[in-house]
């Protein structure tokens, strides 16, 4: 079985090499047959890597410890469902997962791009194959998950107990896929540069489509990761500014800037060079993320897939950056802007400011992440850059970003007068200010929190104003209110889908602000029968149950909890100790309501029956998790094609003066 997998991996490596050469040749010689041969080569990598993956998972399920990777990452006691988790929990396996996921997504992308951008597609295919070659090469020559051990051990070393959690099934796959999928819009962009068609803006739609898909995957990875940290790491928080978290955040920030500024190119033919640079930066940051995750130089809680090969990733990142910038400079002259900026008070200017702000946050995060290396080199003192630093530095910048999110979409394209801008912004600004006043009256004294709530209200007010105005003008034409609202949204999906995403970001912001300024925390020592209170919650420690498993000892505490005078039920926080790893995994018990989370974590069970618990009240964390589905919905909405309107458009209608208005709008760019 394992040997079949070996052959499949080597075959896929060779096929990808073939695809690279033939793909580039097809692009340069404009050979359709060459290009389609390269394409089919790339498609065939998918089944080959699937076979290799099946072999590895089969080895996990059958406990074949003669395979080194299986012996290192599982044991007999591991539940069989976790074979899938174990598959990507180590370095070599995660590389195989990335290669597989990228080949699947890349094949889909190539299929679409080949139809939409026939001249660019072979080059894009070549770039994607190069990326895949790198991963397959590392697997073949350095870290093959199917390598055998000379002697098969009796039992494996087991999987890291912290990874035994439902979140492991979804967070890492999304995160890794998100990071590698940045390579797809990157390939489209570089392909466009190579084919010399950058001045035509034809890549914009495909760049936006794959950019947004990749952005969505990155967002999902980040949100699921925080959710996982919140429920399993058991300190009551969800984001710690850990180096690896930062390295996933940085490409997300750059991609967020990209999916916004690509709209300016779509609409106005501006920012052509800027978009190219943004996507190159995003991909470099995604590679940096993979480097920091794998034997990176900074200590992190994520050091599961650590290995000595981090430096190869760094070298490849440098080479990629050099080559793509060289291509960019080489094709510089094809990227002159079509439109020009007319005013400082315009949406274009707002987009630019927003873009720079995103990059600044990414840069500051990068700076904080690598500073320990810097200080060690300069002064030989090791320092830590932790949560307080990032909160202080990035917090205000993010607030400014939410402000931009409220103001930017209200400004018109091209230019606005001060008067019209004020007319548009009056409502949201008033709402924001009144929120600030209300918060102060309601007893919120923390200046940053008051300010942040006001800004969130402003952003929300801007979106509502747009919806109400749009619905009203349709209503005045005789459509019923719900119908007018639905029509409004479906008539310009990129725009209103974007607003839905913005609403989810406001929800996220409210959750983050409320929970970082108003969390209450207490450490209590309790004997069975003791009753304690925190806030409006009263909780009684009933006792503890000890359960013995082959690999761990699990202690489950039982609590009876009242909220005010009403009994709300039992809660069972627990703690498992894994003697082999000398690791304890705690699992908090959370009672979640939209208003606040009541969170119980055991810290220590003492011999004498007493136990130490950490009790937290985290306000409004619920909203952060609720924002996730809305964000996904909004992104899908803004990506869904507008067939009905596109069909209505015809240029002859336009020139004869019968042009359908919404039709005129769409080809200019539906991204208003």
């Amino acid at each position: 079985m394992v040997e079949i997998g070996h052959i499949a991996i080597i075959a896929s490596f060779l096929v990808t090499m073939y695809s690279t050469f033939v793909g580039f040749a097809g692009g340069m010689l404009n050979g359709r047959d060459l290009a389609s041969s390269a394409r089919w080569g790339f498609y065939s990598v998918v089944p080959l890597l699937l076979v290799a993956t099946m072999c590895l998972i089969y080895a996990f399920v059958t406990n074949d410890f003669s395979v080194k990777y299986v012996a290192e990452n599982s044991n007999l006691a591991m539940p069989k469902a976790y074979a899938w988790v174990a598959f990507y929990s180590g370095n070599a396996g995660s590389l195989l997962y990335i290669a597989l996921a990228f080949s699947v997504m890349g094949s889909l992308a190539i299929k679409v791009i080949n139809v939409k951008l026939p001249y660019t597609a072979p080059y894009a295919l070549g770039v994607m194959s190069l990326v895949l070659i790198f991963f397959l090469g590392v697997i073949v020559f350095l870290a093959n998950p199917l390598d055998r051990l000379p002697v098969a051990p009796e039992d494996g070393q087991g999987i890291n107990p912290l990874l035994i959690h439902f979140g492991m099934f979804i967070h890492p796959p999304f995160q890794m896929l998100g990071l590698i999928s940045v390579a797809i819009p990157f390939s489209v962009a570089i392909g466009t540069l190579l084919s010399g068609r950058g001045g035509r803006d034809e890549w914009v739609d495909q760049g936006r489509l794959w950019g947004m898909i990749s952005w969505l995957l990155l967002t999902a990875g980040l949100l699921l990761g925080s959710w996982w940290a919140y429920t399993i790491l058991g300190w009551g928080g969800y984001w710690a500014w850990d180096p690896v978290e930062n390295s996933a955040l940085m490409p997300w920030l750059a991609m967020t800037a990209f999916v916004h500024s690509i709209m300016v190119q779509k609409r106005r033919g501006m920012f052509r060079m800027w978009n190219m640079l943004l996507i190159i930066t995003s991909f470099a940051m995604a590679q940096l993320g993979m480097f920091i995750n794998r034997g990176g130089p900074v200590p992190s809680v994520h050091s599961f897939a650590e290995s000595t090969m981090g430096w190869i990733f760094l070298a490849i990142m440098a080479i990629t950056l050099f080559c793509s910038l060289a291509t960019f400079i080489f094709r510089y002259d094809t990227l002159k802007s079509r439109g020009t900026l007319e005013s400082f008070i315009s949406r274009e200017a707002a987009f630019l400011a927003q873009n720079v702000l995103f990059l600044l946050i990414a840069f500051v995060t990068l700076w904080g992440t690598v500073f320990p290396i810097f200080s060690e080199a300069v002064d030989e003192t090791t320092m830590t850059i932790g949560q307080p630093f990032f909160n202080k530095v990035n917090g205000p910048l993010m607030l400014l970003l939410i402000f931009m999110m409220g103001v930017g979409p209200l400004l018109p394209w091209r230019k606005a007068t001060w008067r019209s801008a004020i007319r548009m912004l009056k409502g949201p600004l008033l709402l924001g200010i009144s929120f600030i006043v209300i918060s102060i009256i309601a007893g919120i004294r923390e200046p940053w929190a008051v300010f942040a709530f006001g800004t969130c209200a402003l952003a929300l007010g801007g979106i509502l104003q747009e919806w109400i105005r749009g619905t009203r003008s349709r209503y005045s034409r005789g459509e019923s209110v719900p119908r007018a609202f639905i029509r409004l949204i479906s008539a310009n999906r990129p725009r209103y889908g974007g607003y839905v995403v913005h609403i989810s970001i406001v929800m996220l912001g409210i959750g983050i602000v409320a929970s970082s300024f108003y969390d209450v925390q207490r450490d209590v020592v309790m004997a069975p029968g003791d009753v304690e209170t925190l806030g409006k919650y009263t909780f009684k420690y009933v006792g503890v149950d000890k359960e013995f498993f082959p690999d761990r000892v699990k202690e489950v505490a039982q609590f009876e909890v009242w909220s005010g005078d009403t009994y709300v039920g039992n809660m069972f926080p627990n703690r498992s100790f894994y003697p082999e790893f000398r690791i304890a995994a705690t699992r908090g018990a959370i009672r979640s309501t939209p208003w606040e989370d009541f969170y119980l974590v055991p810290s220590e069970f003492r011999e004498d029956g007493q136990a130490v618990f950490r009790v937290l009240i985290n306000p409004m964390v619920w909203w952060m998790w609720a924002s996730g589905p809305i964000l996904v919905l909004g992104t899908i909405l803004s990506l869904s094609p507008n067939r009905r309107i596109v069909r209505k458009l015809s240029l002859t209608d336009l020139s004869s003066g019968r042009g359908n208005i919404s039709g005129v709008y769409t080809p200019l760019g539906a991204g208003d």
Partner: protein
Amino acid sequence: MCPVCPGESIDQSQNDIASYMREIVFDQVESGKTDEEIKNYFVERYGPVVLMQPPNKGVGRIAWIIPPIGFLIAIIVVYMVLSIMRRKRSQIQDERLYYDLDVSLTSDERKKYIALIENEEFSRKGKIR
């Protein structure tokens, strides 16, 4: 910051050393020491690496100074880029903005069309069919 577990503070960490350090902090707070004194106590033993944020002196100050400088540079860059883009505009005729629309319009139609684009709300009001 916990000295043995990578990337976790003593508040987060489940490690024995972390809980021991928590107890030290607790005892010292009880005995009336200020935050500053307790931090110094740990820095003396473990070095500045135990702090969650770099001290605002020596090399640590560089960490704090760079972000505001970056912010200033960002503002200057945005301003400069915008004004360069605006200056360019005056050299280009307004008509060029629409040259890519491969449609021949009479001057009347053209005016009408430009007026349409200028008006943000035209698609909703739908006055022209």
